[in-house]
């Protein structure tokens, strides 16, 4: 079980959180201008790195806020910086 450091509540058990996938994906400003490939890339394609991964979490059973953490997908260790 992971111990996740919520920026507001502090360290809490993984079971209180929901996972929101890769972070820093922004919706294209003008979707109509995109090709089908570009749109599909935005919608479906995600990185699957071996190593550091910036990802979104939501503290569902706590403060209910979304935040971003960086986690090493090999060691499951979270980096210290929280945004």
């Amino acid at each position, binding site marked *: 079980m992971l111990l996740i450091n919520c920026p*507001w509540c*502090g360290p809490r*058990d993984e079971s*209180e959180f929901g996972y929101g996938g890769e972070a820093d994906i922004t919706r294209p400003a003008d979707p109509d201008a995109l090709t089908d490939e570009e749109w599909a890339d935005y919608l479906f394609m995600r990185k699957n790195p071996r190593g550091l991964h910036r990802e979104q979490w939501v503290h569902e*059973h*706590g*403060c209910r806020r979304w935040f971003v953490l960086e986690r090493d997908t090999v060691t499951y260790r979270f980096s210290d910086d929280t945004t």
Partner: protein
Amino acid sequence: MSDGLYRRHALASFLEGETGNGPENTAADLEVRPDYGYLNLRGEPNSERFMQTVQKTLEQPLPAEAGAFTSGQHTIYRLGPDEWLVASELGTENETAGRLAENLAGQCYSLVDVTGGQIMMRLRGPRAREVLARGCTLDLHPRAFKAGRCAQTTLAKTSMLIALADDAPTFDIIVRRSFAEYAARWLRHSGASIHSRVTPVFTGAGGNPVR
């Protein structure tokens, strides 16, 4: 047509089913608190104007720290960076909400009356920490969770707000109405598994909630 409808407390079945049998050692008393009026308030904590308007209206400061609550005429729990739960005597919440809305007019805020959705229970006794800790991942050790602190967490998979009122220890537990009976039964069972009793008590105004 509505003759057949009657009010029944969410924990009536639980209290009716209390036989008084069980281990002799008391772990804690589980007091079913009278119902309160609840307001969920959201706003910008960095806005001096917002904080002062609320403080003036409620005649009580909003808790400034994360995971803290303030007591007074209302009990105000800080749920998140921009979210508070205001518990007041049942029946006064409408008036409080009206005054807040009036004074906050023009400011950015959200105010939702969530009365009736919650049940408050008070777990008090020498082994209350152990009873809770069997189903809660929160660090309840006195060095980590002190009187005046509150936290939203899960107890036996149920979302709830746990607040430590004093070092008896006395835990105030606010749980969704529909989960209240499950949570109360779980607490009693948790007491039994450490060979102690969790004794249900009802002290609400109007006596026994079973009608």
